[in-house]
């Protein structure tokens, strides 16, 4: 993991704001991370902490207030050329969190899945288009005959898979998967995860994987970043993060993972994160620190020494 690998996506000091000029609200606060080509990078953390916003900024839905987003070394936030915009629109696909509201209710699945192909400009022969739709549907475990049905005729999990098929059909290089599996049953979830891994092996895909299910994240991701209130507080390789969580927020998060084990759940001890526990003041402000190779944490000097002492 530590050898020189190509960085496909680089997010540097990204800041995203909402609200008015007079009442700005910083949803993403100077966030930095990079994703290697072919890697699965996990983004986990508090609900409302800015995960979706980061994803949407990468695909250029949200304007950025500060910082840079690089894709293959080229800046893709802010003003970019039309050609680069088109390229990014095809190469980066996002699977959206909300399967209900992200699908066009009045269109048939057939259209929904192949919509992206139309906007690419070059016309595809009808037969080829239909084949692609059928392939994309069966890739995600749906029957090809579903193509002629409408979204409301499907269950939540089925709709989520339509959203995935819609991304896959574009043959992207980089997929931002925002809670792609949360609406799925355990077995379909396993199928979709296997599918994502298989596509990664075959096509060298890179993923930004946003999810609340940490058991899944641990299983599928190479590295994980933990975000809280718009700031990344810890970043490490998956097993390392689970083995040595340093930041108290990470510890609280890991302690809360529900386990499919009734006896374990009954005896579970929840850690609660209290932001005041850091006692940050003007003298000891936290900064982004490397505790051990590849394991970063947001910590004050004092905390850093304590964390190093725990190793």
């Amino acid at each position, binding site marked *: 993991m530590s050898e020189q690998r190509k960085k496909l996506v680089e997010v540097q000091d990204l800041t995203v704001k909402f609200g008015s000029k007079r009442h700005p609200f910083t949803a993403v606060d100077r966030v930095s991370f990079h994703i290697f080509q072919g890697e699965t990078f996990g983004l986990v953390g508090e*609900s409302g902490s800015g995960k979706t916003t980061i994803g949407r900024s990468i695909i250029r839905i949200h304007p950025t207030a500060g910082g840079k987003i690089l894709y293959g070394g080229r800046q893709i936030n802010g003003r970019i050329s039309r050609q680069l915009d088109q390229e990014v629109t095809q190469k980066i696909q996002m699977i959206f969190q909300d399967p*209900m509201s992200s699908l066009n209710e009045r269109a048939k699945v057939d259209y929904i899945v192949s919509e992206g192909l139309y906007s690419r400009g070059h016309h595809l022969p009808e037969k080829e288009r239909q084949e692609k739709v059928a392939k994309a549907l069966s890739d995600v475990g749906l029957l090809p005959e579903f193509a002629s049905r409408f979204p409301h005729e499907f269950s939540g999990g089925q709709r989520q898979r339509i959203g995935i098929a819609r991304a896959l059909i574009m043959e992207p290089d980089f997929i931002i998967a925002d809670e792609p599996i949360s609406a*799925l*049953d355990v077995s379909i979830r396993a199928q979709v995860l296997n599918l994502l891994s298989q596509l990664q092996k075959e096509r060298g895909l890179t993923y930004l994987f946003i999810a*609340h299910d940490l058991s899944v994240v641990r299983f599928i991701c190479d590295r994980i970043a933990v975000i809280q209130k718009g700031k990344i507080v810890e970043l490490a390789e998956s097993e390392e993060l689970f083995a040595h969580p340093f930041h108290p927020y990470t510890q609280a998060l890991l302690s*809360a993972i529900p386990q499919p084990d009734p006896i374990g759940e009954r005896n579970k001890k*929840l850690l609660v994160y209290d932001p005041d526990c850091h006692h940050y003041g003007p003298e000891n402000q936290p900064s982004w620190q490397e505790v051990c190779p590849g394991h970063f944490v947001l910590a004050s000097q004092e905390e850093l020494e304590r964390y190093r002492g725990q190793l």
Partner: protein
Amino acid sequence: MQSSENNVILSFQDLNVKFTLRGQTLHAIRGVSLDVLQGESIAIVGESGSGKSVFVKCTMGLLDANGYISGGSILYNGQDLTTFRTDDDWLKIRGKEIAMVFQDPMTSLNPLKTIGKQIQEAVELHQGLKGPRAKQAVMEILSDVGIDDPVRRYKQYPHEFSGGMRQRVVIAIAVACRPRILICDEPTTALDVTIQAQILELIKAMQKKYNLTTIYITHDLGVVANVADRIAVMYAGDIVEVGSCDEVFYDPKHPYTWALLSSLPQLGVKNEPLYAIQGTPPNLFHEVRGDAFAPRNPRALKIDFLERPPMFDVSPTHKARTWLLDPRAPKVEPPEHSRSLREKGVSRRV
């Protein structure tokens, strides 16, 4: 939970639900019976598309227009809910007696009204509070479900909330109605695990305080292990196994339940495919013959393809619909998952 007060609050009897779609009929619920006990917490788990949402929607008259109950009954408080026809009938039940938190929060929030207003309406309607006192209650509810800065949040619209925050609002509204039965359809999938734990604790506390009965639908078996007294497992429009939480996790009997538990990511080995059930669920536009799971069950018996198995009793609280429980069936060992689940689960860190 069952032992002392065996009060059935809601009873489904041989329920059948169908949808008509362009001249074809889809049989979504195929003769399901289930007793829900007063004060218990029951979880319905199972395949996506197996009919979990449709099943519970029947208790609130919320089936889509092309769906109808084609047989059976749902008894609640001495009334058969399947005979309800008008909105007036349902208004007495919906929200007040039985409330539901939907899978998708966007569908239950009005995009044009502020979050504060929407909760306040529920509070005014169901708790009889007015004006500033109602507003105060709204603020409390918002912080109860873990939303910081309620004053700013009160004035915001749903699209200004994150997915998880919207879901918490929906839960807040449902709870404000003080229902007797709370149905939660994927209540916490959009939430981070710390908030999830908080919400589940909140629902559990409500449950104790108001002797609330809860029906959970969730794909997260960790959540199920945490909240459920009992579990019902659904496959292709049918409940194929029902039992106490421990019975279903540690001693499952139906091959579908085995397969379900074997697919858990906790049992996965990194960089190797996870176990996944082969094939696809049956097309419910065609009548299912025999055991609906048989075509996907590598160890299915001949009779599975011919005849629907009856419910066999495993214990007074545990039942499963599989021919494997027939005394004449060959002995088939379940996969090893239950033991390993237990070991992996307990070896939690931190």
